[in-house]
């Protein structure tokens, strides 16, 4: 899948690996979760009301449209949370019954 974002500079940083929906995704130290996911793909989440993909909007913590989940069910705001090595993200809500 082709990503939405393009890096324009700052590519000298150390690579890290996170897991997105069970698949490894390479990012650079200092990337937010949003950056890491949108370089690798074209969505962060599905809207609850029409199940269509969303990829964030404001990037400044106001619109709340970039929420993703950890595999254990915690919600994270992807635009303001750094991607850290070993982080395990899912882009669809973990059903409550499985927690």
């Amino acid at each position, binding site marked *: 899948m*082709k990503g939405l974002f393009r890096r324009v500079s700052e590519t000298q940083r150390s690579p890290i690996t996170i897991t997105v929906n069970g698949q490894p995704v390479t990012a650079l130290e200092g990337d937010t979760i949003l950056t890491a996911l949108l370089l690798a793909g074209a969505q962060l989440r599905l809207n609850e009301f029409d199940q269509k993909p969303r990829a964030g909007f404001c990037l400044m913590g106001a619109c709340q449209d970039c929420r993703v989940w950890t595999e254990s069910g915690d919600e994270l705001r992807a635009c303001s949370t750094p991607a850290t090595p070993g982080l395990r993200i899912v882009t669809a809500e973990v059903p409550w019954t499985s927690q």
Partner: protein
Amino acid sequence: MDKPVVIVVGAGPAGTRAAQTLAQAGLRPIVLDENRQQGGQIYRRQPENFIRPASKLYGASARAATALHKAFADLLPRIDYRPETLAWGVVDQQVLVEHNQRVDAISYDALIIATGATDRIMPCPGWTLPGVFTLGGAQIALKAQACAVGAAPVFMGTGPLLYLVAWQYLKAGIKPRAVLDTSTLKTRLKGLRGLRHRPAILAQGVRYMAELMRAGVALHAGIQPVRIEERDDEGGLRVRGVTWRNSRGQLRHTVGDAVGMGYGLRSETQLADLLKCDFAFDPISRQWLPVTDVDGATSQHGVYTAGDGAGIRGADGAESAGALAALRCLADLGFSVSPQEVARLRKALEPMTAFREGLETGFPWPWRNAASLPDETVICRCENVTAGDIRRAAGSLDAPELNRAKAFVRVGMGRCQGRMCGLAGAEVLAAARKMPIEQAGRIRSAAPIKPLPAKIRGIMT
């Protein structure tokens, strides 16, 4: 007697200068910053391991940005700085905060609200597609993450940020496919009366436009957005381009893989609203804003607003307003403050106010577009409430104002609490009921003003 506790919410230009002024008077203000690093949005910093110089990040504002960052570094030992701390409510002289999934209540004697602004959004069909971002968001991607939101972005909206962001993308090696501005050359000429109060800023804007044109980027004025087109051929729904009408009403299409959109800014006013500060309708920006005196004192004792959170006057205006609100706060707390300094700051703000009126006149919020949006256009992106839903609330459900419409059809009920849809929703409602926009009111704020983590810990009072 213990020193009074002053809480400053926000660490952008206004919050930083407010904190500095309080510290200079010998106080130790608590500065609550939702971000990880001081700077706010305009002077947002890149992560520590990025290496681009300030000149690259902030362009013409590099000196102001560096000065503000340095002022804050010098200030750090003398303030109680709390980054990554969300001020989500306020009650009984206490600010309710969340940090690292833990909530707390902090008592204050005085409160300075410097919460800034976000892009003002007029939805159009397709605006919820992956690849559509606010202008501010497109800028943050570049500034704080060294990423472009796409390889072939289209910038649409109005206001100075439209040209600044397009120019910043051009400089970063990503050529915008077009800049589509809803404002006309005629309104811009009218705006010059106010804009000439800050000739240097005006000249800068003209320079951005000239450099974009020289690089072959088409700048279109007086456009009407029709829709953002989608495609789904590379493993995920995304932007294919923008369909719009030119100033003569002819249908046009610009191919692109991303859109940055925004129509000026809107103030973040929720905390003042929770405190029941008086608000008034500002006819120039068509927004409800906290009522303050010239120094930023609200109708509530000991509560002040400063910066774009109190009405849009830009970064330089925010620095002056932050210092001025802090001086007013100090005076109210019984400290002696320099009348000369107060007079100097008030004077510094005068051209900002005229300039802002020039901006709103020259690059007006295209409120008339709300009436002609197709019924199926999503207005509330949190809950997919459409223009048609709001019109039903306005018509058969007879909602006289926005909060009733919210109760009926959930516009503004979602996670963002109407930050993205509140202004446009009010315009759709007002147009459907053929009433003046001020009668549509504004969405009432409710705590928590932003979502709190589900696994919250801490003591609630």
